């Protein structure tokens, strides 16, 4: 018996560029390619260069049995590709991975759920899809139903379920499959707070039972709370591996590009963002200089520069501010106010800057994370990067600095107090 649950060596996965945009071939393409082939070869030389990207490259790591490993990385860093390979959905292009035990994953919640089938029928079906034996499903059936909390509707087709009920039932099945290795990916991004609490609870149960967990998340506080060790993926490679506190710190600070400013290169922007093209996100101090550190007692600006390659109606560009624990502090959109909302119903193609002023005396000292989002309300999300940039707030001169003690909480407002002697 090996001491490792997962051993990965020089794992790489290559995708051909274009495979994503032209999602499938037609016979006609193949035939015309066949005809063009001799000409292509002459033109390009025998090498036949094809545009390719490595979603993963030279990734090596191992997880000991019973360990809980966190995986963090920006969008497109290769996290989902890694999980897809480890859960055998797709093959690696090079290298190998050795898996000891059954892999279960919470990214598969609701896989194969059929809207026409009842809750009861879907439990059976979904269990089988996740690799459970019939006997195993029957044995755990009551437990699953109880855990999901949808007893009353268990004989109703799931198409009549609310999305919350659907998710709870799906999660209940996935949570009861008792794999030796559990892979969790971003499920925490869906569902209400109650559901997320359940997910995390289930995960720490699994970890405490001595099973192996691979936890992929954007939620830094969850990573810190649940994992001992974390690897940071950057552009398909393992950039860092360390005890979680250290790795999260690395990810949140040096993992980000330029200080006070974040550029998006063309290859970092997913194709589905078009016609929206993010260019840069900057933090500027009151003097107008780009700054990584700003003072809490001064106002500052956050600006998002972007290009529209075609007009968009109803576009809103938003900012999220998060603490390093991943908790939202606020979200705000550039058309929140009536004036801008009415003026920019339709934004013609062109280059734009959406600038937001943050008042003085708002934030506590510490590090903050900025996320950006470009969407049209309930229609489409063009682009989202929840961890685009981080910056530091220095609270020198803020109210209460006469006492050298940390103030808990992300905000440190200057509030007016009134003290009266009343007796």
């Amino acid at each position, binding site marked *: *018996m090996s001491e490792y649950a997962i051993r990965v060596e020089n794992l790489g996965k290559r995708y051909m560029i274009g495979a994503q945009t032209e999602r499938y071939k037609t016979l006609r393409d193949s035939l015309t390619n066949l005809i063009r082939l001799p000409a292509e070869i002459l033109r390009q030389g025998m090498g036949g260069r094809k545009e390719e990207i490595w979603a993963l490259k030279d990734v090596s790591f191992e997880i000991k049995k019973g360990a809980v490993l966190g995986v963090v990385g920006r969008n497109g860093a290769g996290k989902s590709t890694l999980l897809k390979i480890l859960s*055998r959905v797709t*093959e*690696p292009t090079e290298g190998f991975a*050795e898996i000891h035990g059954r892999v279960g994953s919470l990214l598969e919640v609701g896989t194969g759920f059929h809207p026409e089938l009842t809750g009861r029928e879907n439990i059976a079906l979904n269990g089988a899809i996740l*690799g459970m034996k019939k006997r195993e499903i029957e044995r755990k059936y009551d437990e699953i139903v109880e855990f999901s909390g949808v007893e009353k509707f268990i004989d109703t087709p799931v198409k009549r379920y609310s999305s919350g009920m659907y998710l709870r039932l799906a999660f209940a099945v996935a949570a009861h499959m008792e794999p030796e290795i559990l892979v969790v990916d971003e499920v925490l991004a869906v569902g209400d707070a109650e559901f997320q609490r359940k997910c995390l609870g289930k995960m720490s149960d699994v970890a405490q039972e001595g099973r192996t967990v691979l936890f992929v998340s954007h939620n830094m506080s969850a990573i810190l709370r649940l994992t001992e060790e974390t690897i940071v993926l950057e552009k398909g490679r393992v950039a860092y591996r360390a005890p979680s506190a250290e790795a999260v710190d690395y990810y949140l600070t040096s993992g980000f590009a330029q200080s006070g400013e974040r550029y998006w290169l063309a290859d970092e922007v997913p194709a589905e963002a078009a016609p929206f093209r993010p260019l840069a996100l900057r933090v500027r101090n009151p003097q107008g200089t780009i700054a990584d550190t700003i003072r809490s007692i001064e106002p500052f600006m956050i600006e998002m520069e972007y290009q529209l390659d075609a007009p968009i109606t109803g576009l809103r560009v938003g900012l999220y501010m998060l603490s390093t624990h991943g908790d939202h502090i606020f979200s705000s959109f550039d058309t929140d106010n009536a004036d801008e909302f009415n003026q920019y119903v339709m934004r013609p193609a062109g280059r734009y800057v959406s600038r937001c002023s943050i008042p003085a005396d708002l934030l506590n000292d510490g590090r903050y994370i900025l996320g950006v989002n470009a969407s049209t309300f309930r229609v489409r999300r063009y682009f989202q990067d929840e961890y685009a940039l981080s910056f530091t707030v220095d609270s020198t001169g803020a109210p209460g600095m006469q006492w050298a003690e940390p103030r808990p909480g992300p905000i440190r407002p200057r509030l007016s107090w009134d003290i009266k002697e009343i007796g």
Partner: protein
Amino acid sequence: MTETSATKQEQVEQVVLLKPSKGWIALNLKDLWLYRELIYFLTWRDVIVRYKQTVLGAAWAIIQPVINMLVLSFIFGNLGRLSTEGFPRPIFTFAALLPWGLFSKALSDTGRSMLSNRNMITKVYFPRMIIPLSSILGGLVDFSIQFLVLIGMMVYYKFMPTSAVWTLPLFLLLALATALGVGLWLSALNVLYRDINYILPFLTQFWLLLTPVGYSVSEISPQWQVVYALNPMVGVVQGFRWALLGTAAPSWISLGISVVISLGLLVSGMYYFRRMERTFADMV
């Protein structure tokens, strides 16, 4: 509790090595066996879902072939005046429509199966062959219902099953093998080339004309019989009629050809499918 430890032990054994596979790979039928319960569940799902929210429900399994029978009888009988070797045309046609219906439904279902199960393929591992396989097995339920209708017709027309009726499962197996072979090719090709969606209806129609469903094999002149038998469904249909109604027996030669072609399609389909399987999740 002993049950738990048993399953635990089963799982501990499992070591999987994930690496790029090259060239032709083994069929991995062992994995298919391990996942046999999933085959059952997916078949069951396809059957249940098919007639949910239809007014007539499973009656469709009967209505479709009956209408087909009427149409084919009209075209080949009243218009074409093709022979039925002296058998009543309705039962002569229906006995052929049974395996044909199974086959044509299998073609259209498997062709689409990989795409309609896309969300499973991109998220969980299981031997992908299960998908076309279970969409074919789902057709057996319709087949059984239609078989009851046929028994009713046999009673009405006063046909006793012949002594060769025991061969019926063999011909059914031949139909299933052919359907699976063609289905594997179609479903794997459809992941790569969506043209298959458009080709399928023509393919099925064309194939129907090349199969003696509406007419008798005796309509084909003897020197073409061997070529004609290249279509394995010829052997199947002929066998069904022979076993049930007592028409002329299929010749050993044409039967042999049908079996060889059918197995050829099945084995090549399985290998092609396995070869393509590794990229399904990226392509579908």
